[in-house]
């Protein structure tokens, strides 16, 4: 079960995450085998050693985990709980500015907003667009990050330092600045991109507007999003790759595994938790993307550029239909939860020690 085992046959790549069934005896680590601290992505369940288990019998020990999570739970409940309930409530009411300003209770609307939204064709267009955008961005981010992370293990140290330096600098860049740089680079009147493309013989890109055609516009927006997301993903994946024991790969190579095969059957299973983590986080972030679109379209996105985040914001703050905006936000969360079922199941399994 442990990392020092020989490579597993491809049929059982899941083994590292298999949680121990309650009470099942755990394989203890061979004493003396060096264990490195895990990277963010690596989420193997720590063995509940018999000692700890025994300790649970004492009442104080029983209370300890609750004491430990109490500050977090309290903070979440205090600062997020009430606004969340408010949001949910708001989506069932009909809040206008009059009630907002005067503090009187808005009339009850029941499921009206949900009914209107869900039967609106435009809403579903936006949902489809958001889903497509998310899939493309997450796919591109993960692919690029994985290639970069693998590359970083093969390059000379000074090249690796350069790559890390660039990744770090990109990561530190505020979205607002990144968006204005990209907007400027892709500007129709004085953008560098058009000028560069114009250098290619036969292409005339002078005054070409990238946002005329939403497909091209979204390509630019996806560019900013992916550009900003790759550092987190690549650095996390690279750290995870560092956890793959060299012996494991060597053993597999002795067995004749090469290239993709080696990656799929040996490397990937070890870094899979990190991949799942980064993918789901990217998906969550990209699904709710707001700032990049808002800033790239100068605070006035056209209807063609609405994704769920923007749509909800416009309904709330531009059209002042706070309740409709809230309902869209609630639906967004529900969709994310639905889409994350896979991820949630994985986590439940990780938490399966109960």
């Amino acid at each position: 079960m442990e990392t020092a085992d020989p490579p597993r046959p491809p049929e059982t790549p899941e083994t590292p995450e298999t949680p121990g069934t309650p009470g099942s005896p755990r394989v203890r680590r061979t004493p003396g085998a060096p264990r490195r601290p895990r990277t963010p992505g690596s989420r193997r369940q720590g063995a509940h050693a018999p000692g700890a288990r025994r300790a649970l019998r004492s009442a104080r020990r029983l209370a300890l985990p609750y004491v430990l999570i109490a500050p977090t739970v309290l903070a979440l409940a205090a600062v997020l709980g009430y606004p969340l309930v408010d949001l949910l409530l708001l989506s069932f009411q009909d809040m206008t500015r009059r009630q907002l300003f005067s503090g009187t209770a808005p009339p009850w609307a029941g499921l009206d907003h949900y009914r209107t939204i869900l039967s609106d064709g435009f809403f579903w267009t936006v949902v489809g667009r958001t889903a497509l955008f998310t899939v493309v961005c997450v796919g591109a981010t993960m692919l690029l990050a994985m290639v970069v992370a693998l590359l970083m293990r093969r390059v000379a140290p000074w090249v690796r330092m350069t790559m890390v330096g660039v990744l770090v600098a990109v990561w530190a860049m505020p979205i607002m600045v990144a968006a204005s740089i990209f907007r400027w680079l892709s500007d129709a009147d004085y953008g560098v991109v058009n000028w560069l493309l114009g250098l290619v013989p036969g292409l005339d890109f002078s005054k070409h507007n990238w946002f005329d055609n939403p497909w091209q516009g979204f390509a630019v927006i996806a560019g900013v999003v992916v550009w900003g997301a790759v550092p987190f993903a690549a650095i996390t994946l690279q750290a995870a790759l560092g956890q793959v024991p060299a012996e494991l790969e060597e053993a597999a190579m002795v067995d004749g595994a090469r290239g993709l095969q080696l990656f799929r059957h040996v490397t990937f299973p070890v870094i899979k938790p990190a991949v799942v983590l980064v993918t789901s986080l990217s998906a969550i972030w990209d699904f709710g993307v707001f700032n990049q679109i808002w800033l790239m379209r100068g605070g006035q996105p056209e209807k063609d550029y609405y994704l769920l985040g923007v749509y909800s914001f416009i309904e709330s703050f531009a059209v002042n239909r706070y309740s409709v905006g809230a309902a869209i936000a609630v639906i967004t969360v529900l969709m994310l939860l639905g889409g994350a079922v896979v991820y949630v199941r994985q986590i439940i399994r990780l938490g399966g020690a109960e």
Partner: protein
Amino acid sequence: MAERISRFAAGVGTLVLLASMAGCGSGDDKPVPAAERSGDLTVWLTVDAQESWPDLVSEVNARFRKAYPKINVRVQYQQWTSKNQKIDAALAGQQVPDVVEMGNSETTNYLVNGAFAPVDPAKFDHSEEWLGALKDACRMDGRTYCVPYYAGARVGIYRTDLLKKVGVAHAPRSYPELLADLDKLKRKFGTKDKNFSAFYMPGRYWYAAMAFVKDAGGEMAVKKDGRWHGALSSARSVAGLTAWKDLLEAYYVGDRSKDNGDEPAVVGQGRVGMFYGNTWEAKAATDSRSGGDPALRGRFATFAFPGPSGELLPPFLGGSTLAIPAKSENQDLAGDWIRMFTDRTAQRRLIAADTLPNNTAQLREVAAGGVNGPAARAAERGWVTPLAPGWGAVEKSNILQEMLQDVATGKQSVADAAKAADHRIDAVINEN
């Protein structure tokens, strides 16, 4: 580290406590002499004041301090683009600012929803002669809820040197003359440089396009039987939009899906003969901080823009007003601050900063020969956006911009695009 944090938290906690106690102190109904009044007066102005007349703000604060030595005026500057969501949140909460600046096309919705306290116009200088465009935006059911602050009207701006090169010595005085000048510019410079626009008119520039609609006698929206309806697809509005589109089609070569946000930067690149804009844009086009080119200094002049109808093109009379939130606990102080900030002396300072004053009496003080003279002339024909509760939503959801973009790029015919826009306007314009 932990200790430092808790000390920090404790410090902030104490401050909060003190502030809330200070808030409770003034519960008495007994009138307190002005010199004895104490506390904070929070004023939200937009960044224009910070950029263009910061001295006026500090002078008024100094005058105010003389009257109320113990009141601390806190001026906080806001961005136009993101101001309203902040105001919405603040007005919903307990600690509201005491004075807020509102664009004159934004006020109606706040008035309808009871956000502001009424003011007595008699207390303010020149309130009899307030510009209609600003005054109307502040009135509802016979009461006044905000105070006009300043106005702006768009004019034509042209490159004097380029026009001279095609043998024209003065600004155009009629629409045919304008078109003739543009033809000359286009022939002379446009053939050599395919990026040269004789006339700069980005496709989403709705203040310009709506001026043509107004010039043709059209409307953006009309009120019928108590309800507002989009009117862009009326015959006259379509005629105006068509005139706008023809002008753009003939003389503009740039990006059609842009708005006029970076107009000074584009004009500053030197490939524009004329454009339609605010008077200060002539200056911004020569200021490197807004992307302009200092080498062009002294080569811009303004003119009152002639419309196809034969009269001056009626400009959108944009402007700002100052309002006192109904929840403010310092309404009298706020009123007094606004009184000082908008009195005739202050208005004179605004005129000096190339802005139009809030009243017709002082409009005459704007030098006819100065850069703002044409704007003052055009202002008499100025118009405002429909005073409908949902107009703010129409603007913020980009209905006009998207219609114009579709027209400019040829995605839709004028009539179709206008019909679609009316449909979208109808959906939101009556909403509170």
